[in-house]
């Protein structure tokens, strides 16, 4: 990551119009260039000190084609213009067959009957640019998207880290190439100059703002993307390149073509500041993948999902983030989309981990129809720090941490349901049914009745024995309880459960909880049935006669 600040470049001068600039150039060469009357304000001086930035412009001339994915066969993109569909771009194979941009699609099909034709999709182009901007964030913290096919990277702060302009440029070009994008890359001290150079396809690298004028002068004015009328009238004046345009009188130029055009020229040359807005990638990850045709093969769908998860991991990795919830959506042509939600106990970003969870859930998912597109949306991101590996010379065994049991709990709950996997904890409460609660695994909140626990953890092993001996003094509690006490039949006033019960201990009277609506009045007994099983039963004292209930087993 570069160390340059994240804020957009702020203008140092207040008003960007040339008329407000008052400092006059006294340099002889600039006086000669401006051929202006004495009363007219000259161009603002070049402020070398103000330009410490270096802009790298990535121009993607074939973006409309590349955004639609690569194809081995001849392929072309068309656009409808005034009712005529004309090809906009064609891939190498189509070009070699003679398909040129601008010919109608009928002519193209006549040339290559098997030609794949797709309509231009500007939404896809924007998405692709955003994706690339996200990727480019690994080279610098300042990336801006210039519609329709440009990315501007401020690289002055990244040069040292990436080993100079040349290495960084190679890095970026190779990265784009591996993603299937053909790009023209130019580097200049001002964003506009870099843009124009990239559009012209000049693979130059200008480091000094003083050289800008000379390098920009031969560029055709077509690179400026000015309106056709402006371009035509410039051509009519015999102005065909930027150098010639710069030679025109400033006031006249501003009057004829608008102050904005003059401002653009001044900005490109570094005479005026050119603030840009930094692209901010969304904090949440969302990606989708269109399948070429409907698919129902689960293996193939899982592969696509894995690819999406890998993109998610890359997204999270550069941000040092992790997510806890994911939502997959499988779109069908006819029926509404199928949703598949994944969640884990601890925020994670590892592809493998998410993929394992997905596989378990996907097995049990029944898709109503073949899938045409898959979308992945991530929940809120959380900061996540990587753990340190145990050093090899550190002989201490790697501790079983909560994280790994969390993974187990996730795998289990992914298949059998979230509420079916839980931990337990004590609650300081006299009513037996409220003396415990379920809790999430990995929840490190200490439970209430942890006094003996504390002693056990910090005391000597002898303490364990002591507490076990004291067990007999404690209240008798069964290891098994029934979630709902079971009503027992009675015989001669004694409860029956596989035979008449013998009460061997008790009663333990519990009469509490009158303050909420669930108060109890019970006499608990330890009972033994004829088979020798020890049971925990109680008589409800709230009613007359006192019915007997089975509440637990000593197990």
């Amino acid at each position, binding site marked *: 990551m570069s160390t340059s600040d994240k804020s957009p470049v702020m203008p140092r001068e207040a008003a960007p119009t040339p008329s407000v600039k008052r400092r006059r150039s006294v340099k002889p060469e600039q006086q000669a260039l401006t051929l202006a009357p004495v009363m007219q304000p000259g161009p603002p001086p070049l402020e070398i000190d103000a330009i410490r930035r270096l802009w790298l412009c990535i121009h993607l001339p074939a973006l409309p084609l590349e955004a639609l994915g690569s194809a081995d066969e001849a392929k072309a993109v068309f656009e409808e213009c005034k009712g005529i569909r004309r090809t906009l771009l064609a891939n190498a194979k189509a070009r070699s067959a003679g398909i040129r941009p601008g010919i109608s699609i009928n002519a193209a099909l006549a040339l290559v009957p098997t030609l794949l034709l797709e309509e231009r999709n500007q939404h896809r182009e924007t998405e692709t640019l955003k994706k690339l901007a996200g990727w480019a964030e690994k080279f610098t913290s300042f990336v801006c998207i210039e519609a329709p096919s440009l990315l501007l990277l401020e690289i002055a702060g990244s040069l040292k880290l990436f080993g100079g302009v040349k290495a960084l440029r190679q890095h970026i070009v190779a990265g784009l190439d591996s993603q299937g994008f053909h790009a023209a890359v130019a580097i200049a001290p001002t964003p506009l100059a870099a843009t124009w150079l990239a559009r012209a396809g000049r693979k130059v690298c200008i480091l000094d703002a003083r050289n800008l004028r000379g390098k920009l002068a031969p560029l055709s004015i077509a690179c400026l993307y000015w309106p056709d009328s402006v371009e035509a009238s410039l051509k009519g004046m015999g102005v065909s390149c930027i150098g010639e345009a710069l030679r025109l009188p400033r006031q006249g130029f501003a009057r004829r073509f608008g102050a904005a055009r003059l401002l653009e020229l001044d900005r490109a040359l570094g005479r005026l500041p050119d603030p840009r807005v930094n692209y901010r990638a969304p904090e949440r990850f969302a990606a989708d993948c269109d399948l070429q045709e409907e698919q129902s093969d689960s293996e193939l769908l899982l592969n696509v999902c894995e690819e999406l998860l890998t993109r998610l991991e890359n997204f999270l990795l550069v941000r040092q983030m992790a997510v806890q919830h994911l939502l997959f959506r499988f779109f069908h042509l006819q029926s509404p989309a199928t949703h598949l939600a994944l969640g884990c106990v601890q925020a994670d970003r590892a592809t493998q981990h998410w993929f394992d969870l997905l596989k378990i859930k996907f097995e049990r998912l029944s898709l109503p129809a073949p899938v045409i597109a898959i979308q992945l949306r991530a929940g809120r991101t959380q900061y996540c720090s990587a753990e340190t590996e145990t050093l090899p010379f550190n002989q*201490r*065994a790697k*501790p*079983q*941490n909560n994280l*790994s*049991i969390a*993974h*187990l*709990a996730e*795998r*289990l709950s992914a*298949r*059998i*349901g979230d509420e*079916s*996997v*839980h*931990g*337990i*904890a*004590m609650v300081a409460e006299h009513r*037996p049914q409220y*003396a*415990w609660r*379920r809790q999430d*695994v990995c929840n*490190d909140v200490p*439970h209430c*009745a942890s006094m*003996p*626990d504390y002693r*056990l*953890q910090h005391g000597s092993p002898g303490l*364990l024995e002591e*507490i*076990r001996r004291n*067990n007999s003094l*404690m209240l008798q*509690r*069964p*290891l*098994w*309880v*029934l*979630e709902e006490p079971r009503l027992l039949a009675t015989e001669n006033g004694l409860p029956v459960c596989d035979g008449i019960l013998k009460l061997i201990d008790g009663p333990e009277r519990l009469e509490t909880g009158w303050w909420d609506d669930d108060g109890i009045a019970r006499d608990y007994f330890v009972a033994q049935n004829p*088979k*020798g*099983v*020890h*049971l925990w039963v109680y008589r409800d004292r709230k009613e007359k006669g006192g019915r007997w209930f089975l509440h*637990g*087993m*000593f*197990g």
Partner: protein
Amino acid sequence: MLANPRIWQGQAGEQSLPGLASGYPKLDRQLPGGGWPQNALTEILLEHYGSGELKLLMPALAHLSRPRDDATEAGWITWVAPPFAPYPPALEQWGVNLSRVLIVRPKKPSETLWAAEQALSSGNCAAVLLWPQALDDAASRRLQLAAEKGQSWGIAFRSLKARSQPSAAALRIRLSAGGTDLGILKSRGGRPAIVRDYAD
């Protein structure tokens, strides 16, 4: 003569792990290794739930759920498909570390075995208790292998009717109705025995 390496000694080949002390000396004496077999599956056959099957295991589970020394952390104890709710106050009385208890309640019988296998082979659980509806020979072998892989201790609670079924478990114990007597039906490296009043 025994020092002669050419003389094969039947016992020496078996490289058995020391057992995990059950907390009941009478029982430990009958078990090879002096306790519950480690990294293996144990089967406990009983007539009905609540006849002292948890009491039999509690000292060992309490030991596992606590940090033993600096090197070993407290182990997790997973309960798969328990027939009733394990009651935390009683577990705590027995000394079980409640923060190391994981309860899994699968909805289908097939999920019980799957969950148990996952837990056993994950290597995170010191002990896995399971209450399967049915456990055939192949399934018990799978669980036994999972326990070996994850270095865990699997305990399957089964009905006494399963007594005649073959099983791959390293130890099979029959518990009497009152929970006072034990019958060791099968013990890898040991021999069948009957232990009366094991808790005394």
